[in-house]
């Protein structure tokens, strides 16, 4: 919600005017992403980790795996749980405290992409059906907010999952005994999110912070490796027409393929 005008009125007008003419303040085209840098395996204590820089937005994701109980309605599946923290040092607008609606929404969008695309083969995480399974914790840690946390977090989460290794184990008398060596987490799909912003009835991709403060509304589409949509989230206080949404699906298809190549190597 645009509560406090962080961006001066003059600048907002300029951003909106440029976009009406198909241009952006940082010189990008309407469907261009900022420069992306991705590193994996930076936190040895975590089972998997990744850090992404999308322009100046910086997000780190760490994964941890622990033994736990399955959900009663899916007794032979492992458990995925995604959490996001808008760490106060990431932005003057982030306050310390329990997760607010923005961090909860972010976590749930990232979760939806992974879950609905069945990216993790959860059945392979079953230790003892109905009793013990592996729980995969995906923790999204936003370190610098310069716009488009959703796409950055989704990519970093995927990269962290691909980087995740599980310790080898065997079950002895109902207890888990760790064996030497590691196995990569079984990943079979690669969800990528593309977020659109609407400004003056024009649609742009990957809004940076100042564009986010000018935008009326945003639409995120997450697609899997087969070009299937697995998650959608409209946000912000504006609206879209059907035509704009269908147009976005086409752009999203193109963009998710581009972005996936940066995350999934080989």
């Amino acid at each position, binding site marked *: 919600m645009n509560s406090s005008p962080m961006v001066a009125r003059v600048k907002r007008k300029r951003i909106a005017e440029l976009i009406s003419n198909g241009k952006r303040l940082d010189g990008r085209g309407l469907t261009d992403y900022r420069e992306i840098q991705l590193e994996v395996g930076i936190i040895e204590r975590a089972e998997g980790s990744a850090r992404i820089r999308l322009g100046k937005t910086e997000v780190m994701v760490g994964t941890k795996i622990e033994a736990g109980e399955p959900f009663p309605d899916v007794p032979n599946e492992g458990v995925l749980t995604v959490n996001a923290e808008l760490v106060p040092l990431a932005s003057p607008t982030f306050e310390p405290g329990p997760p607010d*609606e923005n961090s909860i929404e972010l976590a749930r969008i990232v979760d939806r992409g992974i879950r609905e695309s069945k990216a993790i083969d959860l059945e392979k995480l079953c230790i003892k059906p109905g009793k013990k399974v592996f729980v995969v914790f995906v923790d999204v840690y936003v370190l610098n907010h310069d716009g488009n946390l959703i796409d950055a977090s989704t990519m970093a989460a995927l990269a962290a999952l691909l980087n995740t290794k599980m310790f080898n184990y065997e079950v002895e008398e109902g207890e888990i005994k760790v064996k030497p060596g590691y196995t990569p987490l079984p990943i079979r799909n690669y969800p990528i999110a593309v977020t659109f912003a609407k400004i003056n009835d024009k649609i742009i991709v990957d809004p940076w912070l100042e564009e986010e403060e000018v935008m009326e509304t945003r639409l995120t589409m997450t697609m899997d490796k087969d070009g*299937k*949509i697995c998650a*959608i989230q409209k946000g912000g206080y504006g609206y879209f027409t059907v035509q704009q949404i269908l147009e976005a699906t086409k752009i999203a298809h193109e963009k998710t393929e581009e972005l996936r190549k940066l995350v999934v190597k080989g």
Partner: protein
Amino acid sequence: MPQKKPEKLIEENDVRIDGRKLDELRPVKIEVGVLANADGSAYIEQGKNKILAAVYGPKEVHPRHLALPDRAVLRCRYHMAPFSVEERKSPAPSRREIELSKVIREALEPSVFVEYYPRTSIDIFIEVLQADGGTRCAGLTVASLALADGGIPMRDLVVACAAGKVDGRFVLDLSDLEDKGGEADVPLALMPNLNAITLLQMDGSLMIDEFEKVVNLALDGCRRLYTFQKEALKLKYIAVKEAVEE
């Protein structure tokens, strides 16, 4: 009493578990102006869903620092009663309720002339008394009526309906079983006269062309629900008029 998970959700002849056709809405009953204290209120039953909405405001915001100088603040709380679902739900707001409160607020905002009432708040409360899938849509539909009932100026009513894919077919207005067992669920909210989509979410898996079909099905469901909405809003006045003018 726990529900048994059925093997098939849709029969060969395209009849759904509850007997509906693929593009059939659940039976709807709407009543406007049901709570005495609220400034505006409405109640909906859609299939087994029972949802109540109330609006308070516009009134001065407390605490003061939350007020916006040039417009009203819209606050929304979507909440499920502990007895509304099969397994008792804790009264504390879940992450899902927090997310839904946000997307519902963002779906209603485009319809309200918030700029008319600076420094005030308009508070919207949605209570799900019984849930059977599609509660965010039914909750939105009835919250929009509560706003209109409260005399809050609006650009249009907001109406919401979900469509999706179940057992390979495209269906309208998914029940809880269909949502959990189906391939995709797409809730959508619309301001019909302005053709403006104010809520759109999806979970599941759909090819782009399938998504297009599902969206159009949801839009059609919305337009049909809209006639029920308008009727319910007018009903109170029409009944009085008919009674006295004969």
